[in-house]
């Protein structure tokens, strides 16, 4: 049991990092970004191309991939900031659903059929915990995800830029009239989230298959985790992400192991319906 739980730290950390970005984007930009996994996945795939085309080593190709992830974020962010700045949350979210479908098509093109090899970051030294060897890499990863959650919240609360972002999230037009550069900040948040997502997807890239959609689907569990944080609290979202990873890992060897992917959602639906049990009506009044 403990061994399985610890093995779940790797995917859990990935979900956590993506979930923090989802909450950040929802809070700052009013969009639930279904495309985050596909954006990070596309960035991560770039590293494979860099290895193949230019023979780059793992570290430079990883750095190049993160830059690519950021650029993908800038492109999508510019699109959204240009055409959907004043759209409703649902409309912007539907846009990201369409973007997801499009990016998966592009990612499939890049990965289709070919086999790429990439060094596994977690093949390194491991630490003995409860009699189980845990790769130090996975502990670092989870710590990084939790640190990201805390760090982003502290950044938003204590810095001038954080205050500008919060102002923008509450009243974009008023913030714009006050001289805050709303479009630039919007694109910056997209780029940051996409770069973080790229790093997160890089973590699972070596162990995943050669097909693109599973990388894009990582976001689904992250969305579940973000929902547990009511799309509001990054720390709960991050912890939720880690727990979902662990839950999947525990279920995997059991009798219902075939349905590993489905189990977290059963839990998320129950938790969400319980938390929202008083939301009988769609509007407050």
């Amino acid at each position, binding site marked *: 049991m403990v061994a399985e739980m610890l093995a779940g730290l790797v995917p859990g950390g990935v979900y956590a990092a993506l979930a923090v970005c989802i909450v950040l984007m929802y809070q700052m930009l009013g969009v639930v970004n279904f495309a985050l996994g596909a954006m990070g996945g596309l960035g991560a795939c770039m590293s494979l191309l860099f290895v193949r085309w230019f023979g780059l080593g793992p570290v430079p190709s990883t750095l190049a991939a993160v830059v690519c992830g950021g650029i993908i974020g800038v492109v999508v962010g510019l699109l959204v900031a240009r055409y959907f700045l004043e759209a409703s949350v649902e409309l912007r979210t539907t846009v990201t659903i*369409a973007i997801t*479908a499009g990016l998966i098509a592009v990612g499939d093109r890049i990965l289709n059929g070919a086999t790429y090899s990439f060094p596994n970051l977690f093949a390194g030294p491991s630490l003995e915990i409860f009699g189980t060897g845990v790769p130090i890499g996975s502990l670092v990863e989870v710590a990084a995800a939790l640190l990201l959650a805390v760090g982003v919240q502290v950044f938003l609360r204590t810095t001038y830029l954080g205050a500008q972002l919060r102002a923008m999230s509450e009243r974009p037009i008023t913030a714009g009239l006050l001289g805050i550069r709303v479009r630039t900040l919007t694109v910056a948040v997209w780029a940051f989230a996409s770069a973080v997502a790229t790093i997160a997807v890089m973590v699972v890239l070596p162990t995943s298959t050669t097909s693109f959609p599973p990388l*894009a689907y990582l976001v689904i569990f992250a969305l579940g985790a973000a*929902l547990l944080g009511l799309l509001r609290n990054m720390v709960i979202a991050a912890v939720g992400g880690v727990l979902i990873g662990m839950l999947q890992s525990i279920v995997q060897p059991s009798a219902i192991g*075939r349905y590993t992917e489905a189990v*977290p959602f*059963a839990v998320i639906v129950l938790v969400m319906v319980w938390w929202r049990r008083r939301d009988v009506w769609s*509007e407050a009044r």
Partner: protein
Amino acid sequence: MYGLKRASGTPLAAMLCVVIVVMALGFVLSSYWQYVGAVGAAEAIFGLSIGMVYGQAGMLSLCQPAIGAIGAWSVAYLSGEEGWVPLPWSLFLGAIIAIPIGLAAGLPALRLRRVNLAIVTLGFVIVIDTVAQAGQVAGSQESIFVKTPTWDLAGYMGLYLLCWLSFAALAALTIVLRRSRWGLSWLAIARSERAAAAMGVSVMRAKLTAFAIAAFIAAWAGGLLVAAFGSADPSNFDPVVVLTLFALAVMMGAGYWEGALALGIFSAVSSALLEQWGLTPDLGTALFAIGAITVLGNEDAAFSVMIRRQVARLTKRRAAAGEPVALRSFTPAGAAATVPRPADAGSSRPPALAISDMTVNFGAVRALDDVSLTVPCGEVVGLVGPNGAGKSTLVDAATGFLATYSGSVRVDGAQIDALPAAKRARLVRRTFQQDRTIGELTAEDYLRLAAAPGTSGKRIREIIEFVGCRNSRTPLSSLDVRLRRLLMIGACLTGAPKAILVDEPAAGLSVEESIDLAARLVEIPGRFDCGLLVIEHDMELVRLVCTSLVVLDFGKVIASGPTAEILQRPDVAAAYLGDDVAAEKELEDIAARGARAPVPDDKKAGEPHGR
């Protein structure tokens, strides 16, 4: 049902004509294109399913195409190797089996909405995908042969006809449902759940019926795909396919049948062309994504919406919205004289509405403190007080929109505290401060949705006439604010309630329009045999229509009695207009002059603040 046949006739005939042309086209197509067309019909049916839940009922649910997998597995199992059930029947059985699954998928929608619902329903897509990948269901691993009816026709013509006949039948179902009470209730919950419940619509029933019927339709489409592909390949229902179909449904505006039809034809033909040109279908997916994003940038760009606008322009059916209606003037004596009082009005009859000892707390704030008031049958009672006094809270509590309150509400002698909002609407109706009419509906449809069971068409037309609406076939979105407000009141009347609570009916109206409203309001209790509670800041309107007044301040009743007497009281003036001698004087002036009150142009800015 009233108006249903006539109103659905035109779109139904148009749809059938188009489908007959498409079916006839099949006879000149090659076998390959017949096959493509058959798949297109199946995808069009998925479009109908998405259009029902998202396009009509406004629920951001992504899982409809995934429910198609239930139909696919059923058909693979029932009509596969063993061939227990021949094809058209297995489609029907599969669709029936999918209904409980659709209901289960819809349950979270009772509490989760918008983006939350999108995430949870995407989880449902993953669940279906996981089950398919696990390979425990019929046809998900091995290829199976499902015998399609050939009707002695060449090539894939049998399959082609089966698919397009299915589309015709299911599209006809959606067209008829759109104008039925169920379909109207879907539009109502998409607009506002509270307003829907206030009209007597059960929000739960509306949501679940949409999910159940959409599941039936999606499963039918899933079954057709198995008939076409010969297997229930998991990749037909994986998240990419589901998300792409959703994006396409948005792009085409699948809430209308022609949008769904366009979705099917566009999706199948573009995939086939890309295949013929040696390009992989993922390019098509990328193109659909771009198309969907373009449409989302301009919601009127959805294919079906553009088509409808063009057709309306060509047939010039868009009626002139602004046929001027003469505003009624108000003569207090005359009005009082012409109001027929119900014969049995008197002390023996229980009051239309009796609220006793009502207390409402929001956390530490006491919004209503031991409030009691009575609205006798056949009378108009005014409820006034400064903003935040608790007037709307009282309406919410009385009509069942607050989870908890203490005290009791009786309508016509019957205690209604245990009833949910939609059931209370049989006895007591309310309006909202904001415009909560449903823009897509005509006045006739809107009132039909709100009507009590068994209300005749004649009665509905009478009420439309009573509120002064002459454009009963024009969508409400093209009517002015005044008419929409009056129609909200008209919708209350069609429910034949014992008591009606109107919340700030004159907000945003001009002085002349307010007087017209007053003339109509004062007629309601006698003509419709009910009691009327009017919440209003417009003192002139209150003075004209109310026989008695209740004044609320800080959640407490500070005065109640005959209107003229109450308006004279200095403590009422102080609460209402602030502790200001000039303000008191102003109120006395209003009462003395008996003329129009000095209503500021900007009502919001001019609203009284008592604190």
